[in-house]
């Protein structure tokens, strides 16, 4: 039988990572409040579902934005026929404007530099194709998004060299670590073509401060390597410090403006996280390098955004009033959800890395590890999936240099589900604590666990949830007297 290519037969698609095993557990037994309350709760998917109502309202008010409604149909023919890889001019303008707004209008973006790609997935890959040859390398601070292993490496043949970040300084990227990684590469004769940052960070949920960004930029500039900033979580910043985009650094800072070679700087953007539209595949490459803009644009033929989608996005994002309202409200809701979840975790003694952005938090479960090893982490993770029934993502799948950290997503579920997740976590931690306090044999722990399972299945668990709802001041039930009293 005719063989397939090496690309097709290697494992670089990355689907055998544990990142996906949790998803499989969820797919086999998905939680549903009514139909499957004992199922696995999906907390491994970084989606933003908190503000759809605002978008749905806008769509109702603006039927013309869709080419299938009576009001919008007159555009159908032109839109369906338009295949220019520059994209609809109004789409590019709207995206540029939106990018400005999400950066507090502190910097301007040029619509002529907005290039489409098949989601951020496509955008990241396209930039690799433009900036690096097979065998070249990009430095990436770890922990990092597992998808990078596929997106940046699979078809491009580019290598990823992680820069270890440590919990002892809150996983901040240090110049020393960067230098070390760079020098190691030089010694191994690997050509480093650039550095890729995710800011705000996935999985940490933190933003890079101005000084760090400047230092990183100085380093890449001095070594004449590219700097790619994946800013797809820009709008998920809900707390101080304010988000600082690389665009601001190179545009607004006079010194930087003078000394930095802008041809080395590129931004990846998308609407999948900020707006919650992963299905629409709106990825953007924004480069300050004219050649890269031209090249990426040609490559965008392989992953253009459907004009149907360009059309509706253009209308939505050029509605200034809506955008402003959305940005404020979305940030508010994310902050609230973050507080609720991290607060609930704190109550049972679980700490998270202090974060101000993202759709997730970076949970410190080191105290729960039987042993501070990769195996220890995997064991704990399997326990969480199978017994606690939460799909969380183990730090090892993010290439985290330390064991015991887990990413937990909180913006893709409703308040009630968050409560249930917190109850399950509490029960799990309590069960664990009992063992620790009593020093009792594993049997008891096993009994506790199976008791948990029993209680899940015979409805006792649901009672716990109900009582939580009634008692908690954060009750999701709007008519709760406690909530009213607070207001």
């Amino acid at each position: 039988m005719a063989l397939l290519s090496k690309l097709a037969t290697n494992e670089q698609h990355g689907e055998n990572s544990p990142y996906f095993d949790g998803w499989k557990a969820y797919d086999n037994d998905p939680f549903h409040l009514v139909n499957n309350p004992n199922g696995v709760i999906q907390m491994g998917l970084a989606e933003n579902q908190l503000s759809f109502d605002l978008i749905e309202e806008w769509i109702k008010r603006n039927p013309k934005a869709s080419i299938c409604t009576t009001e919008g149909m007159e555009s159908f023919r032109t839109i369906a026929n338009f295949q220019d890889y520059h994209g609809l001019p109004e789409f590019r303008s709207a995206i540029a404007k939106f990018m400005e707004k999400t950066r507090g209008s502190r910097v301007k973006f040029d619509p002529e530099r907005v290039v489409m790609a098949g989601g951020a997935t496509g955008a990241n890959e396209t930039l690799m194709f433009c900036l690096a040859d097979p065998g070249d390398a990009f430095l990436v601070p770890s922990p990092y998004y597992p998808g990078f292993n596929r997106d940046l490496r699979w078809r491009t043949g580019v290598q990823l060299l992680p820069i270890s970040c440590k919990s002892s300084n809150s996983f901040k990227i240090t110049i020393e670590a960067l230098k070390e990684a760079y020098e190691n590469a030089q010694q191994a004769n690997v050509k480093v073509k650039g550095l890729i940052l995710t800011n705000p960070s996935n999985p940490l949920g933190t933003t890079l401060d101005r000084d760090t960004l400047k230092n990183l930029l100085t380093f890449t500039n001095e070594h004449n390597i590219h700097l790619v900033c994946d800013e797809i979580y820009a709008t998920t910043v809900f707390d101080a410090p304010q988000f600082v985009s690389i665009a601001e650094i190179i545009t607004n800072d006079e010194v930087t403006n003078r000394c930095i070679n802008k041809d080395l700087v590129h931004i990846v953007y998308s609407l999948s996280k900020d707006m919650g539209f992963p299905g629409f595949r709106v990825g953007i490459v924004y480069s300050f390098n004219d050649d890269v803009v031209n090249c990426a644009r040609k490559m965008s033929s392989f992953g253009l955004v459907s004009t149907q989608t360009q059309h509706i996005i253009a209308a939505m994002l050029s509605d200034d009033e809506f955008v402003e309202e959305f940005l404020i409200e979305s940030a508010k809701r994310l902050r609230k959800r973050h507080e609720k979840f991290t607060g609930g975790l704190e109550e049972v003694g679980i700490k998270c890395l202090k974060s101000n952005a993202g759709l997730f938090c970076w949970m410190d479960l080191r105290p729960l590890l039987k042993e501070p090893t990769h195996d220890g982490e995997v064991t704990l993770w399997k326990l969480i999936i199978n017994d606690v029934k939460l799909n969380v993502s183990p730090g090892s799948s993010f290439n985290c240099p330390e064991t015991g950290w887990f990413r937990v997503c909180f913006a893709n579920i409703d308040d009630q589900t968050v409560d249930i997740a917190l109850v399950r976590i509490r029960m799990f931690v309590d069960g664990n604590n009992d063992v620790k306090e009593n020093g009792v044999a594993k049997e008891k722990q096993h009994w506790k666990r199976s008791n948990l399972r029993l209680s899940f299945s015979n409805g006792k668990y649901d009672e716990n949830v109900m009582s939580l709802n009634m008692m908690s001041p954060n009750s999701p039930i709007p008519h709760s007297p406690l909530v009213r009293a607070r207001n």
Partner: protein
Amino acid sequence: MTIKIEKRPTVGLSKVATSDTHGEDSPYFAGWKAYDENPFDEVHNPSGVIQMGLAENQVSFDLLEEYLEKYRDVARCGSGISSFRENALFQDYHGLLSFRKAMASFMEQVRGGRATFDPDRVVITAGATAANELLTFILADPGDALLVPTPYYPGFDRDLRWRTDVKIVPVHCNNSNNFQVTPQALEEAYKEAESKNIKVKGVLITNPSNPFGATVQRLVLEEIVEFVTRKNIHLVSDEIYSGSAFCCSEFVSIAEILESRNYMDSERVHIVYSLSKDLGLPGFRVGTIYSYNDNVVTTARRMSSFTLISSQTQQLLASMLSDETFTQNYIKTNRERLRRRYEMIIDGLRSAGIECLKGNAGLFCWMNLSPLLEKPTKDCELAVWNTILHEVKLNISPGSSCHCSEPGWFRVCFANMSENTLEIALKRIHDFMETRTIIQKH
């Protein structure tokens, strides 16, 4: 005060970025530029360049609009409130099941029910451009080659070669047998690759063919299948014009060949389809790969993460294409209108003294202007092309941009304009030919 930065010497980009394999320097695209600078418009610019280099299908939009008008609630393309959220969140690379079912069903109808398609083998990509590149990544390693019969769609130079670093080895076809692929030509191309130590991984055909506008005969398809089987290589059949065959029964899909042999040894065959030509929706980026090879389906699906179809568009088309009353009528009417257009242009050209290759499909015809060439060379062909572009003000595509080994042939599109505009174009050609005859007589 903004401080101007000195432009430093270009920092290193990749080899892919600095090569010209993107193909945009070909005359195929130069003609488009001339059009962009001076586009014809019946009212506002009646002496502008008429675009006849763009293979678009604009003859049946009214049918689509009618459907939307009637079923806009059913279409649920985002205006249905409860479905918007689920739709916007749906990023599963399997694609909407309803969409895959609808595509499979549509592909069956286009083939008059002579082949069956399994929705689970439908892989979604953002256009046929992406589908062809993706398949190339999967079937061939950098440095390997695909055999492609000439002349072929100029975009293949980019789609199959640019980022994949795969080569195209041409299979030369000529007018002696109406440009049909022969086993000898395939064998010659294969040997040529071998002599250069290039590994051939597959054959890629377009059926119906671009640029001819003709379906590939059953016998030829069988010979191609026999060839790829013997060499143990893959076969990609790009069937994006299948719905544009003027007469349904004249189009034979590779799927039918496989079905007739009970799918024996069919794992080497893969079909590319798209809605850009048949439905006239190039903006929506709807491409599919249909493979009979499970590994290819799995891998293609994983790779499609880089190039998925917008879930909004999947939803709209799932509704549209699962409405059999609509699709049956559309397919039939579209074929009929394209046939009429074809006859109109053929008659018009003939009365101007120009012959075309006999066609029966597609959105274009393959025009023979070799009598106009001073010498049968590529340069003379380009000279004629230049004249037609700048004096006659028609953007047509020279055969050399399609890698045709015989100079003097041109692809002329006829479905991307109104009938009025086509009349005007034919008149311009007529006048041009008359002038040339007068000049020649003197």
